[in-house]
């Protein structure tokens, strides 16, 4: 793993993609690849070799949950941590998403200024648990 965290971000809303790109690249200093669908992500993931998947839940054609399933089937990605982004903010829904195998759930609207801190914390905790 290089020093700069590589994040593959999948989100179907172009405006949110742009806001998140600024937040992740300019505030967080991460290396970010953005895809607007699950299919595109599956196509480009191998070439990018991300350290983290940041997946929107509600997307047409392939939901974040379905995408996670496909990633887990691939030995290249079956151990890469996944954070879900969701607009469904109920505590019970957040718990259900964690149950699917995500390391964390970020609720929309997220705060672009603190988003990168949140991701750093999640990754630190994840790596600790792996060590």
């Amino acid at each position: 793993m290089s020093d700069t965290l590589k994040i593959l971000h999948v989100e179907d809303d172009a405006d949110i993609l742009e806001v998140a790109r600024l937040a992740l690249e300019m505030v967080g200093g991460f290396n970010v690849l953005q895809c607007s669908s699950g299919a595109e992500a599956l196509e480009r993931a191998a070439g990018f070799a991300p350290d983290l998947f940041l997946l929107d839940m509600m997307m047409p054609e392939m939901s974040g949950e379905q995408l996670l399933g496909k990633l887990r089937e691939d030995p290249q990605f079956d151990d890469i941590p996944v954070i879900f982004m969701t607009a469904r903010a109920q505590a019970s829904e957040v718990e259900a998403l964690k149950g699917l195998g995500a390391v964390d759930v970020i609720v929309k609207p997220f705060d672009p200024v603190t988003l990168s801190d949140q991701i750093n914390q999640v990754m630190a905790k994840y790596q600790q648990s792996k060590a």
Partner: protein
Amino acid sequence: MVKNIKKTSNRVVAIAWAMMWLVHPALAGTGSELSPDSRAGTVMLIVFFSMSCLLAWTVLNNRRTTSLVKVKSEDAAFQIDALNRHSIVTITDKHSNIIDVNDRQLALFGYERSELIGKPASILYPESDFSVYANVRSTLARGEIFTGETRLISKTGQIIWTQSTIVPMFDDEGEHIKSISIRTDITKTKIANAEREMRTALHLVRDEIYMFDMETLKFTYLNQMAMEQNGWDEAEYATKDPGDVNPEFDVATFRALSQPLIDAEVDQVRYSLVNKGTPYDVSLQLIQPDGARPRFVAISRDASERVALEKTKDEFIATVSHELRSPLTSIKGSLGLILAGTTGDFSDRTRGMLEIARRNADRLILIINDILDLEKIAAGQMKFVLEPTDLTELIREGIDANEPYGGRFGVSFKGEGLEAPVIVNCDMDRIFQVLTNLMTNAAKFSQAGSHVTVALEKTDETARISVIDTGAGIPPDAQARIFDRFAQVDSSDRRAKGGTGLGLSIVKAIVERHGGKIELESEVGVGSTFRVDLPIMAGRNSEGEKGHTVAA
């Protein structure tokens, strides 16, 4: 007419009494012993004679030319026997005390003759029908014949419907001395009629209706809809029970469910079930029709529509939530990034405008969250995870967490009565939400430099959390609607203080879902106290622990 009957009756009575002396001294009151059968037979003979005379008189009086059929004596005996088998005969004195009854009455009402003789005839009437009994007495006293349906009651409390004719007898002076009643048992007809009417009505109902015996659970009635649903006809269902309708029907579960009906603790039990993939709402009652065994009535309604509607509503809420949050994510995100300087410098005036935009985007998010919370609570979909929770701990956490918020208004928080643990069964997160809401509200409306007290008191049954401020107070007219949605004392408050106007209605809903209640006491210029009472867990709080009383 009354007078005529009386006059005629007197003639008849005179002849009847003469006959009685001839036929049987016992009935004329000499008191010699006779077998009940022959006594009743004699009674019937007299009754027949009396009635024949009455009929004859009526016919003649109406100037009809029909002649009466002459009754031979052996025919008369035969007829009396038949009548005795058919009718219930009671003779009473002028005070309505029973002088004699026939065997049919004894058999039907379950009494010994000695149990009825000398008793007032009211013994034969159910308590609820004493007014009918009074009406009969007054009719007879006026010298009139009573005819009509009367509800009587057996020794064991069974209702016996009768069609009655009660004729008063008079002596030579025209004084009412006795009455004789001849009744036909019409209970079976009554029940059959009532059932026929009920069945006709119930067949039209679009819900499925099942009646089944309380003991055997065998069906006694299915309405048209229920028969159609199960593909049975009237001949078939009598051998079936609820287990034949729903393969998952469990007798033990049903017995437990229906026990409160049998114990008369409730008059209705409602439950939902799924039978072969279809959801049903069921209402269960226990009835005991006159003269029949107790039975359950289950009204089963297809709940597919309700369930589908709830699902649609859920989906709608989820969609609205998503559709509103997505654009807000971009708005809030863009504003946040600009204000953080990510995109370059801007003037203070621009910053001011951007702050306003961001603040209002935040407000919109809060409102959406609150509306969704309320919808979920209202639809009973908000999951409450109840577990034993120490309120003193929760209040301490609440004070810590809200201290920074209070600081913005120059207000501090103070806990009272937090020395010994007070355990209630609650959803910790939701009660924390309640605490936070009440505390931030109190801070918002308090003077800088003042403090807000969060006090805990414990009684045998409840734990009371009081959030006490010394702020502006709430006028009485606003107190009444303070827990309504979007109710604030003044709508300018909302803008100035940044609330959504939904917080207190959410607080109330959460408290009520815990089986608790919330109250407000407030005086303008003095301050406000919000009191939350939560039911306490029996046995969890040890004897020695006493809550501190706090003067509000």
